[in-house]
């Protein structure tokens, strides 16, 4: 296996998504994947940072191996969350996949400038959405060598 993750341990994914429907779709699509994974869903940027910092109710949170991050979030924007993660000495190495409904080139450019590992525009069509999530799962969980936590 192409990864530093020890065999038998599920890959921990942090999903930062404010839409419950899209979160559910994403989680369902990932559940059917080839590689055992566990998804931790938070609805906004502040909770995402609490999760990473193991603060408050997230004191027992595992370190995520991968972060799926929406840009349109309440309170702090996805760009700001990305910045906080990529400026942090130990969180910065966690791959961040931006998954957002934005099609705007400016968002794409800004995300890559902010060191997003990759940017995916969420398809509007449900089947294509599921395909996109599966492609992410296929690439990031089976091809990529994720950094050891």
């Amino acid at each position, binding site marked *: 296996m*192409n990864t*530093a993750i020890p065999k038998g341990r599920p890959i921990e994914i942090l999903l930062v998504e404010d839409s419950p429907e899209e979160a559910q779709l994403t989680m369902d699509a990932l559940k059917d994947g080839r590689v055992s994974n566990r998804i931790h869903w938070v609805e906004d940027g502040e909770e995402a940072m609490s999760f990473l910092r193991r603060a408050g109710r997230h004191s027992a949170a595992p370190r995520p191996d991968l972060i799926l991050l929406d840009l349109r979030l309440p309170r702090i924007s996805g760009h700001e969350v990305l910045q906080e993660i*990529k400026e942090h000495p130990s969180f*910065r*190495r*966690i*791959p961040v996949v931006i998954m957002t409904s934005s099609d705007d080139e400016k968002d*794409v*450019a800004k*995300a*890559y*400038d902010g*060191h997003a*590992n*990759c*940017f*995916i*525009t969420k398809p509007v069509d449900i089947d294509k959405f599921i395909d*996109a999530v599966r*492609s*992410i799962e*296929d*690439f*990031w969980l089976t*091809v*990529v*060598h994720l*950094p*050891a936590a």
Partner: protein
Amino acid sequence: MTGIHEAAPVEILLVEDSPNDAELMVEALGAGKLKSRITVVEDGEEAIAYLRGAGVGIEVSSPSLILLDLHLPRMNGHEVLAEIKQDESLRRIPVVIMTSSEKDQDFIKAYDLFANCCVSKPMNQEQFASTVRKIELFWLRIARRG
């Protein structure tokens, strides 16, 4: 980056000092359905010189994807990566580290330097080719480019 030349092949830069690996990669990329134009450079300094020169001439355009080995003569892969990701005009280009290194530290360092992703080179030739094609497919068809 669409426009008049919508059918123009996509540019891929391979930074790879092993001729065998380079050949495998070029073959694998050429075998795919995607029209890619591949440039191979053998060391880090050449890579940087190429990237800085690209976009200036009419013939050479900025690559849409860089596959970067870590163990290179003259400038090592980490240094090349750092230069690319610190350069405002180059940092948006996805850089995929492809390495035979087995040291966790090499991967961690690459991610810390903002490699878009890291992939271990499979030992088996078929898997190697298949991995290269998966990288090409994901970065040129699925991911949005900056």
